[in-house]
């Protein structure tokens, strides 16, 4: 058990190191000097040199790489190239909002996805299943921004129930959270459905039915437990989808989270800001999948004793 957890932690750390290195390399080998782009063509070499010195860009690459890690351990993401403000402060201010949005959406999406997926699988090819399948098909085809703007038009304009943008009250969380969760719930329902169908075809389900267990027991105790590992894995992976979707949702509803900060950072080519945001997102994704790993080594003894 301990060995299993340790190997998972080590793998997560390796992934994180590779990710950070990849981002570092990507940012440094970008075509076109970012400092020159930012200062404009008119800037003299003196000014460019001073700017590079200010952000430590004139140091050797290896030094910069080590420096990046040292700063990251202290949760220091440097100074914004655009505004000169402390990036870490802005990140921590924004992450609150993203966490609020992402966790609400994940809870709603999980509830809808698992329930609809199970019912759809047990009532295969009946009316409920057919309806769910059509709805989820539309759901996964709807880009987040189209869905979000559609909801915004209906619920913030036609019937004026919720504010269309900003994060002033709890009411403004409703539309972004629904947008994000519906988008993820669509694919989640499909995946849970197919995981359940896989299990329901197994011999031990026929066995359980033959023993005379009630259908409810067979579905919710036997089948669900066996589909649990797959469903959990899927949940972990869907979280990545949700993080990406939250970037678009935040822009649609002007929600002041990490996603919006990042998009603005990309537009103004503000590397430290983008770097910080991407690391937060990717780190969150890795941590959640690590947790998923822990949980299923807890629920599935086969994994624990390997």
């Amino acid at each position, binding site marked *: 058990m301990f060995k299993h957890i340790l190997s998972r932690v080590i793998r997560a750390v390796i992934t994180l190191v590779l*990710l950070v290195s990849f981002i570092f390399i990507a940012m440094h080998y970008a075509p076109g000097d970012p400092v020159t782009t930012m200062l404009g063509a008119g800037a003299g070499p003196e000014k460019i040199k001073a700017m590079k010195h200010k952000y430590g860009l004139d140091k050797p690459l290896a030094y910069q790489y080590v420096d990046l890690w040292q700063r990251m351990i202290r949760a220091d993401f440097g100074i914004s190239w655009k505004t000169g403000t402390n990036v870490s402060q802005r990140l921590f201010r924004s992450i609150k909002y993203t966490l609020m949005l992402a966790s609400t959406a994940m809870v709603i999406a999980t509830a809808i996805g698992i329930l609809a997926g199970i019912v759809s699988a047990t009532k295969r090819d009946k009316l409920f299943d057919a309806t769910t399948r059509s709805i989820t098909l539309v759901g996964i085809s709807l880009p987040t*921004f189209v869905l979000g703007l559609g909801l915004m038009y209906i619920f913030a304009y036609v019937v004026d129930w919720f504010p269309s943008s900003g994060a002033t009250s709890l009411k403004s969380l409703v539309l972004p959270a629904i947008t994000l969760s519906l988008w993820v719930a669509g694919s989640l329902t499909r995946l849970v459905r197919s995981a359940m*169908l896989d299990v329901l075809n197994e011999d031990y389900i026929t066995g359980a039915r033959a023993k005379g267990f009630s259908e409810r027991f067979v579905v919710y105790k036997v089948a669900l437990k066996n589909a649990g590992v797959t469903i959990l894995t899927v949940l972990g992976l869907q979280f990545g989808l949700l993080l*990406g979707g939250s970037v678009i949702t935040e822009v649609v509803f002007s929600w002041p989270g990490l996603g919006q900060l990042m998009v603005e950072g990309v537009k103004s080519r503000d590397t430290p800001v983008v770097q910080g945001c991407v690391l937060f*997102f990717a780190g969150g994704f890795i941590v959640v999948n690590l947790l998923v790993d822990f949980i299923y080594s807890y629920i599935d003894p086969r994994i624990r004793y390997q």
Partner: protein
Amino acid sequence: MLTCSLTLFIPTLTLELGTNSMFKFITQAIKRSLRRSKLARFSTGYLILLLVIIIFGPYLAPSDPLALDLEHTVQPPSMEYPFGTDGMGRCILSRIIYGARLTSLAGFVAILVGMTVGIPLGLISGYCRGKIDTVIMMGMETLMGFPYLLLVIVLITMLGPSLPNAMVAIGIWIMPYYTRLARASALSIKEQEFIEAARMSGESNFSIILRYIFPNSISPIIVWSTIYYARAILMAAGLGFLGLGAQPPIPEWGAMTAIGREYIFVAPHVLFFPSIIILLTALSFNIWGDLLRDILDPRLRGME
């Protein structure tokens, strides 16, 4: 899981039946689904219409997609402008028609980038195994370790926001999926006897990969490309909306919805038409993707 069984299934099927009968098998199954399912007919019809629009776009468009008509800004649909005009008085219908070309081109280029880099890497990885395999797959897993959209954003930051750069970035995002696909095919094909025969007759590894492994791994790649194509198009639209892909006057569908967002409460038609087109396109591709998957996944087929 589905992906895994499918990638392993098609190469074996190809080996058993040969590429020609494999395509015959797929076309027959598609014909059957078209007869049975209304949704499949709808999506096929829509995709054909889209193809016509892409080919004959400039002849169909009522006006110039970039021409400003400042006397008729944000007009609702009328005879002159069937889908109305946007904030600069540009004809929305014409912009959507031209946008179809851009969007399909974006998807196509992205897929091509992904293929040209991803497939050789995957074939080498699966054929050679060992250290090369470990290194290539570790690199690919790092790329896949990014949450959805984030890798593309990192690449756009590196390259700068524009439509061509977005195409390249989306291509790199899709690349690892091609690598995985090609690797799985190579793994199963290299165990076949004809590969052994080729090796014994003294062919180099390079020529074995090029002449035997690659041609036999093409069919799963073609099938999966329809699904990746849809994903690439949606991603391009999403980037356009965020302002990280096509830049404003360019009539790309995602960028058009971004313009529409500004007029959402004043003139919803500016937003409505590009949105509905994106939705219909993605829906049609997904219906087709589902169809192909149902045909090709042996486990789902067995259950019918």
